[in-house]
């Protein structure tokens, strides 16, 4: 199908975009369009006015800012996936981006677009919550706000963004060299939307005791779910059964809308895998450290 008619304007700057959003809250921002144009083609969305921000080069940049990486909202998934800096400093994010759709989708889809769209099965919203990222939101009239990723996603396809707001930058804490990461998802075919998935970061001390643990489930609720149960592992030395037990506890707290038994089963499986990958990577980082 074809989209319903709309008026199209190309934005020239962030300031220009914010001014247009302020004067016309009905206007819809178009970045890469890989979600928006699909739902417009299916006529699930019929915006009457489109403001194309896809050419705003000022938001297509990445900065190495000491302990964090600052990424512009218009960076494409493909650039995030292949960026040597992101792969080295925030490998979980690069891996999450790799799981999105297919190359041609990742060449166009943007980080900011994906976060603002807030698909509950989306990889990037989950990765941002797992990484403890901060989202920068700007508007014409209000001062710039910093919103923690875990507060940004409020419901199904719904975020803390007001109609006149624009997501501009995303600050992602760089992962410590001994922090291990895990990212898994279950999908019927490669590139399909995830039925369930999990992202985890675990830091073990040299003696194997957990010093930091954070994890997220996605595709199983109306937004990414922070797995608070994993915090009980901090200070303990986990064995393989620990991770499955935490995953079972996290899955039991879910209330999936359909096929709850199956969804909980997938949640346990993906979370256990993500934990195991993350712990193994942390151990391997210590091993490399002692060898050199």
């Amino acid at each position, binding site marked *: 199908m074809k989209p319903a008619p709309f008026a*199209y304007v190309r934005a020239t700057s962030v300031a220009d975009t914010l001014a247009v959003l302020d004067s016309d809250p009905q206007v819809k921002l178009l970045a890469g369009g890989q979600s928006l144009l699909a739902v417009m*083609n299916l006529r699930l969305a019929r915006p009457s006015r489109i403001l194309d921000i896809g050419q705003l080069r000022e938001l297509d940049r990445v900065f190495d800012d000491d302990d964090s990486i600052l990424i512009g909202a218009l960076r494409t998934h493909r650039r995030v996936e292949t960026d040597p800096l992101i792969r080295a400093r925030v490998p979980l994010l690069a891996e999450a981006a790799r799981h999105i*759709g297919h190359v041609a*989708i990742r060449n166009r889809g943007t980080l900011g677009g994906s976060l603002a769209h807030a698909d509950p099965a989306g990889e990037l919203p989950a990765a941002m919550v797992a990484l403890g990222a901060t989202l920068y939101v700007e508007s014409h009239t209000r001062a710039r706000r910093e919103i923690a990723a875990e507060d940004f996603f409020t419901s199904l396809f719904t975020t803390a963004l007001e109609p006149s707001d624009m997501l501009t930058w995303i600050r992602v804490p760089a992962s410590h060299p001994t922090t291990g990461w895990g990212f898994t998802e279950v999908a019927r075919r*490669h590139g399909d939307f995830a039925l369930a998935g999990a992202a985890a970061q675990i830091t073990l001390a040299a003696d194997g005791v957990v010093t930091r643990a954070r994890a997220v489930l996605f595709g199983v609720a109306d937004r990414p779910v922070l797995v608070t149960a994993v915090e009980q592992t901090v200070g303990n030395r986990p064995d393989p059964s620990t991770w499955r037990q935490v995953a079972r506890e996290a899955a039991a707290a879910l209330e999936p809308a359909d096929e709850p038994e199956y969804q909980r089963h997938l949640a346990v499986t993906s979370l256990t895998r993500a934990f195991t990958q993350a712990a193994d990577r942390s151990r391997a980082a210590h091993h490399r450290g002692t060898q050199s």
Partner: protein
Amino acid sequence: MNDVRIDIEVNGIRYERTVDARTSLADFLREQIGLTGTHLGCEHGVCGACTVLVDGRSVRSCLSLAAQAGGTTVRTVEGLGDGDGLSPLQQAMSRHHGLQCGFCTPGFVVAATELLENSAELDDHDVREALSGNVCRCTGYHGIVAAVLEVARERQPATGKAAE
């Protein structure tokens, strides 16, 4: 109000046209400049038949507005060969029976062209992953993958790698 003026280069030719804002890049290519090699299957980004290269990168032309593509350089399946001659990949697709009905073929050839232009060495897994966004209901993919791998292998002497 909904008309947008675009300036776009397609297969080496520059076009200045006025389009309705809602015109997809695919419909622009097919209906306004007559390049019907780009096929439209699902029109929501799932089948990959409409894949074209925009500034050298593969995109779904059904999930791209013609208006968004203003100022870019586009290559379609018609622009891959050399005049009337087929590209090495197109010839290999023919040799390996990488197509039957041919509807999905332009998308596969364009996506595989991007892959071949951006990677030094390729194995079966790389090719299958890169083409996972393209759906073919006839061939079972084997001939398509074989064709891409053959082109990757045969060009290796040029990149300094030993041929098998």
